[in-house]
């Protein structure tokens, strides 16, 4: 990598400073795929140690925005992200920012649990640390235990850490994936409909977990489930698909305001279930 990155690491712009307020700023963010605009002019702030929910109907660009935050669109040929995405004031799309470093700071949990099928529970949890070059056993053990406790999984798996991850139930697998992401100690955790493939009981466990995790990590969650957004999130971004099928931000406000006193009539319609 180049020197500007090293400098950024040295002066802490990339490494530390996770309590700057706001933690993450989106300014006029546009995402397009091979010229077709999927998200237009989205701007909002993510407050630290809060849960920010992205809500809106299918196709409104929620997941597209989420995936732009850890640069997963880099994998898609023809994808283009424009505008400013500032993490602690540093543009994460600026030349010299290493995506590998960025992604170890901004973790992600996916729709369906995706533990690595060939690895044991323990190896799954520490996989992120190992990817990042951490070999020291004591550090791995410490981080694994802490992450599993935070994911409310420690009690049930501490005695069978060598078992395959596939022996866990769906809800447990998803919590394992949360633990796996937490173990790297990210500042931000992106959650893409993390409970959409789970049963109601597991969903409730995860929602409780999210509230407990707030003091450890800042979360951004995409959800189709408005009750979920109302229950867990502190701030809400409501998106809709414009006529040209591009997602636009309609309203960004504290969750209570979005659900009880929204300022845009379209938000009123949506939270009252009139469309989407």
């Amino acid at each position, binding site marked *: 990598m180049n020197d500007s990155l090293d400098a950024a690491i040295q002066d802490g712009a990339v490494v530390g400073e996770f309590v700057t307020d706001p933690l993450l700023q989106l300014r006029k963010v546009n995402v397009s795929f091979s010229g077709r605009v999927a998200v237009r002019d989205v701007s909002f702030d993510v407050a630290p140690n809060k849960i920010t929910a992205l809500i809106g109907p299918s196709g409104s660009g929620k997941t597209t925005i989420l995936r732009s935050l850890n640069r997963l669109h880099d994998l898609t*040929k023809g994808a283009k992200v424009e505008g400013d995405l500032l993490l602690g004031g540093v543009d994460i799309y600026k030349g010299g920012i290493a995506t590998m470093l960025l*992604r170890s700071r901004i973790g*992600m949990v*996916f*729709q369906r649990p*995706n533990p690595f099928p060939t690895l044991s529970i323990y190896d799954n949890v520490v*996989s992120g640390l190992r990817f990042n070059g951490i070999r020291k056993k004591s550090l791995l053990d410490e981080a694994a235990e802490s992450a599993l406790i935070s994911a409310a999984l420690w009690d049930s798996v501490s005695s069978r850490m060598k078992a395959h991850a596939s022996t866990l139930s769906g809800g447990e697998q998803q919590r394992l994936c949360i633990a796996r*992401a937490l173990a*790297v100690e990210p500042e931000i955790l992106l959650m893409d409909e993390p409970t959409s493939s789970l049963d109601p009981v597991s969903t409730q466990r995860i929602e409780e977990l999210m509230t407990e995790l707030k003091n450890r990590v800042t979360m951004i969650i995409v959800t189709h489930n408005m009750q979920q957004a109302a229950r867990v999130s502190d701030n809400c971004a409501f998106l809709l698909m414009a006529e040209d099928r591009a997602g636009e931000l309609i309203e960004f406000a504290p969750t209570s305001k979005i659900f009880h006193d929204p300022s845009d009539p379209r938000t009123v319609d949506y939270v009252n279930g009139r469309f989407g």
Partner: protein
Amino acid sequence: MNQSTKSLLSRRNASDSPRAKGARGESDRFYVWTLRGFAALFSAILLEFVYSIVHQSWPAWTHEGLTLLTGTTWNPANSVYGGLPLILDTVISTLVALLFAVPVGLGTALVLNFVLPRRLQTITASMVELLAAIPSVVYGLWGLYVLVPWMSTTIQPWLGRLSGGAWPFSGDPLGAGIMLASTVLAVMILPTIVAISRDVIAALPKDLNEGALSLGASRSQVLRKVILPSAKSGILGAISLGAGRALGETVAVLMVIGGNAQMPRSLFSVGATLASTIATEYTEASPGNVAALGALAVILMVLTAAVNAFARRLVRRTGALSS
């Protein structure tokens, strides 16, 4: 897989009118019995195939017994039927071919899935698969007139010097021999390994790739630590299918291996495989020799059937073979 959902038979329609049912029942019975009849006919041909080959070899097994498997000299002219050199040449040339083809095949499968842009994927994959379309006699011709001189004047002397003439690079650089057969076989089985491991890898959930990247993994870490291990059994199946093909390949090997049935001493040795020996000696064999050649056919049949059955089990588990 979803056999039950697709069976027409399982879809007795509730809206059948009673009148239609009578006529239809009879015709359907005829249809079903036609299908069954041809399946039975084909099964009979398969059984006849196995039977006639085993039957032909029977005198050899009763006369020679295990010598056919363990004897170290194959000399039909003097009625000495030791099959070991042929078995060894067959197995060794296949293993060495895998040594060349597996790294190249897996690397290619990974590039096709993860490195090339989608537009180039299909066309590049088709080009690799065209390797499988070229007839084996053409590979033989190419091996005989292009690779033999190149091996004997360049590669083998170089390997000999590099290793100080030590095993397995000992002996005269003749060009033709086990090493060249392995090289040609490697090219021939490469498309099999690439096509199947590519399918197996493509069948993995996309989430695995993104999940690993989201933890900060580098591209090579994703491929080496997550993708390859997850696709392990399917890849092993792909390799075994390639091995099955190499074990039975006849004409290309026949043209470049030297055609001399002797115990292999090094990779430079000339040799003869089970298949190449059958191809060269079968039509001109005396009755006694025919039985021994039949025994070689039985050995080859058992070997390839076992390897293939193993491979298909592995690949089927991944759900990639249907494509």
